[in-house]
Structure formats: C-alpha cells, structure tokens
C-alpha cells in the first residue's frame, strides 16, 4: 500500500462554540491543508474527523501532535489526536 502524507486528526470532546475554529486554526498555522471534515455526535460528545495533507506543512507530524495536544489542554476536556492515515487504511482497507 502506498504511503501518503495524509493524516487523520480526531477531535473528541464536549461540543462548544469555536471548537472547530481552534483546531483548524492550528492546522492552518502549520501549513496543513484540510481535505475533508466530517463530524458526528455521540452521547452529547462531538466526534470530528479531519483528513488533512501534510505535503506543504512547516512542521513534522510529531511536532504538529504536540501543538494539537497543547490546544486540547487549553480548551479543556477535548482530546485531539493526529495519526498517519495508514494506521486506518491498513486496518480497514485491503
């Protein structure tokens, strides 16, 4: 399977005004291009999945994760993860 520069950003937590803006803000600041956003509500919690491309990013995935973690901590009660897309493609696609 080909390895791309795509990542999956997952946001899990209580919904609130400005949540999407905060997360996408971090991505924009670091040159990460958003390809797709979808969201669903699970028992009052928001689950947002962002598929993004790191080709033009100014940082590597590990640094981006640290920045997203920091944003999650700042917002409080929100877990923001970022993983290489292959972690999901390998599991769910042959």
């Amino acid at each position, binding site marked *: 399977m080909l390895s791309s520069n795509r990542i999956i950003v997952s946001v899990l937590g209580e919904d609130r005004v400005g949540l999407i803006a905060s997360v996408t803000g971090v991505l924009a600041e670091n040159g990460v291009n958003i390809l797709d956003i979808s969201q669903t509500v699970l028992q009052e919690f928001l689950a947002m999945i962002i598929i993004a491309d790191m080709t033009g990013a100014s940082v590597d*995935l*590990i640094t981006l994760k640290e920045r997203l973690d920091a944003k999650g901590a700042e917002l409080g009660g929100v877990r923001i993860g970022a993983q290489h897309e292959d972690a999901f493609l390998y599991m769910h696609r042959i």
Partner: protein
Amino acid sequence: MLSVEEILETINMIQEENLDIRTITMGISLRDCNDRDSDELCDRVYRKITGLAGRLVEVGEQLEREFGIPIVNKRIAVTPVALLVDGRSREDCIYLARTLDRAAAEVGVNFIGGYSALVHKGFTSGDRRLIDTIPIVLAETERVCSSVNVATTAAGINMDAVALMGKIIKETALRTADRDAIGCAKLVVFANAPEDNPFMAGAFHGIGEPECVINVGVSGPGVVKNAVAKLPDADLGALAELIKKMSFKITRMGELIGRRAAERLGVPFGIVDLSLAPTPAVGDSVAEIIEAMGIERCGAPGTTAALALLNDAVKKGGAMASSYVGGLSGAFIPVSEDSGMIRAVECGALNLEKLEAMTAVCSVGMDMIVVPGDTSAETLSALIADGIAIGVINRKTTAVRVIPVPGKKVGDYVEFGGLLGRSPVMSISRFSSAEFVRRGGRIPAPIQSLTN
C-alpha cells in the same frame, strides 16, 4: 474514503480496548562474531548488537507517535548462544551473557533473548556448559532471557535434557529467591521452538534466519473480548466469524508497524506473530474472552473448546492480514500475566491439569505458573515432559515456564511487577514421578514425524 465509524473504531480499540503492538523484536545473527579469543568474541558481539539495534528504540518511539499506537516493547533476539561457546569455559559463557546484558542496556531494550541451546537430540559440550550457567546468568543479569529446546516432532524428546531442566529451574529459583524466583520467569523450555518468535522470554534468532530481521508481535485480547461481549446471543459459528474479523484488523496494525520499522532500520521484515498476548491490565485478558463466550470462569468445562475456537479464528483472520506469519502464532495463557487467569486460579476454577489440556489447543500452555518452593526437580521435569509431549505429538510448539518460589506454599502470593504480573501459588500433584524422570534417555520421534 474512510468513514467516521471506521476511524472511531480504530481509536476506540487503541484508547479503550488496549490494542497495542506488544513487541518489535530485532533478530541479530552473532555467527560472524565467533573468534578463538573470548574477549574478541565479546567485543564483536557488543559492537554488532549496538551497531544494528542502536536506533531500534528511537524508531519504535517515532512509529508510536506517528501512527498513534503504543509499541509496548522493543527487544532483541540473538543466535542461540550455545552455538558460540563450544570449547569455551564456564567463565567465558558468563562473560558473554554479561556482554549481552550490557549491549541491551546500551541500546535501551528491556530484554534480550537467545541465551539458548537446542538440545532436542542431545548435548554438545558447549550446550551442557551453557545450560549449567543459566541459573547464575539469570540471577546476575537483568535483561538476558534464556530458552532450551528439549524436543521436536522429528527428533523426539531428550529426556536427559528434560531431567536437567528441572534441576536448572530449581537452581535458578534458589539463586533468585530474594526476588520471588524471578529468574525462572526468564527461562522457557520448548518443544518445536520457532526460530522467529518475537516474544520473550523464548525469543532467539534461529539458524535459518538472515543476518538481521524485524519480527513483530501484536496484542489485543481486549478488542476481541469486547466484540464477543457485544454478541451474547450469537452462535459459535458467528462468534468465530467475528473473531476472525477482529484478528484481521489487529494483525494489520502489526503488519504496518513491522514493515515501517524494517524500512526505517534498513533491515528485512520477517514475520508477524499472530498471538493474542494478555497483560495484567484489566480488560487485556485472554481468560475474559473465554468468559465472554459463556464460560462462567476460565477453567470450567468448555474452556478447552472455547480456547480452540478462539485460537483457530485468530489464526484464520490473522493469516489473511499479513504477508508473512510466523513465531508462536497462538493465544497465550500465562497465568500471572492475565488478570482473568489469576482470578480463575484464585476461585478454584483453573488448575494445572486444565492448563495442560488447554496447551493442546494453543501455543504456550503452561506459562508463568507459580508452584510451591518445595516442588522437587523431578516433578518439575515431569510437568515439563507432559507439556512437551503435547507439542511433539501434535506437531506444534509448546513451552513451559514454571516458577517454584522458595518458601512459598499453595495459597501464598507472588508479585513480579510490571508485565510479569502477580500470581497465587498453584497446587501441584504430591505424587512422585521421580522414577520415570530418572530413567532418562530419548523418547523416540512419534510416527507423525515420518511424513516423507
């Protein structure tokens, strides 16, 4: 495009159900390190291990962060050391073991396997010397793991080796008595030992293996247990189907991480070991899968059938998910490392005899079993012989890891800590097998071995 549900399923498996990569194990051949001079041999061994595995931990940690999946252990397996010590002294063997320990510490791995001998048909002088030093090596080193293959389906059972291992286990227990005989947790007795097993304590880099290789062991009993628990009314065929799907998903993660690790370290990718490996963490238990299938407590009648179903379904799903499967590839049922197994022993549902039966349908049946300190060497040997015979006759790997803790009696507790867990001391038959063990010799290869 991936769906939100698929992405959430993966995240849930990792965050809530303890899905992890249990180990990335680098296999390293030491055959080119041999030299007449033992100091030179040890220097070469140290340089080779630290050279090849220098980045193993760093790469493992990188992959953990990028793919968001924990990689619990990074480990090293080397050529069975017995192959390097023919003609050397006891002191040379111990010095070599210390060198392995030092190299493992230098590269930051918690275990290095391969202080091993393959004696299924008989001993060389080096094999004997190495085995004699196992107790002192396991007592005096921190990271070195040892294994001895005493039987194969093709060769039969070397009962002299089985008898010897009973004594070696006793001596190892005595030498580590102050730490609840932890030395025995690092010593495995095998039948049909695989050459590419990534799991400790039995990992070694077999003689058919390349110069250096990356093997991966996956885990994920929690994922399977939760899936099974969601289908309380499904029949067993449907359950097997579900377990296959879960095993496929778990194994794909192992395949991904193994391939990426091999690429980044510049060595070939070997195999994914399709074992369900429990940890003492709640919800990461193989016994709980059996209980979720409808057995009140692991060990009750039906347990062997449930384990057979589980083990087979894991293999079928996993075999589809990986291009190369190897190692032990069967569910592990180590008592002290599985909270459900511990509970089953505590409440009297699970005993040694049932574990022996379960050995017939999984990979390492009698694993991390704590028995009273006054168990005789002959009884330990006879217990090993039983486990080994199941492997030899059924053309499969079996392994015995038994821990006779000095001063402990049935009902006492032993705490090993970390992934090795804790365990109540189990009852073992008080009837003697000494005369049988003392006969020695070799049990001939079974008729099943004549396949040509």
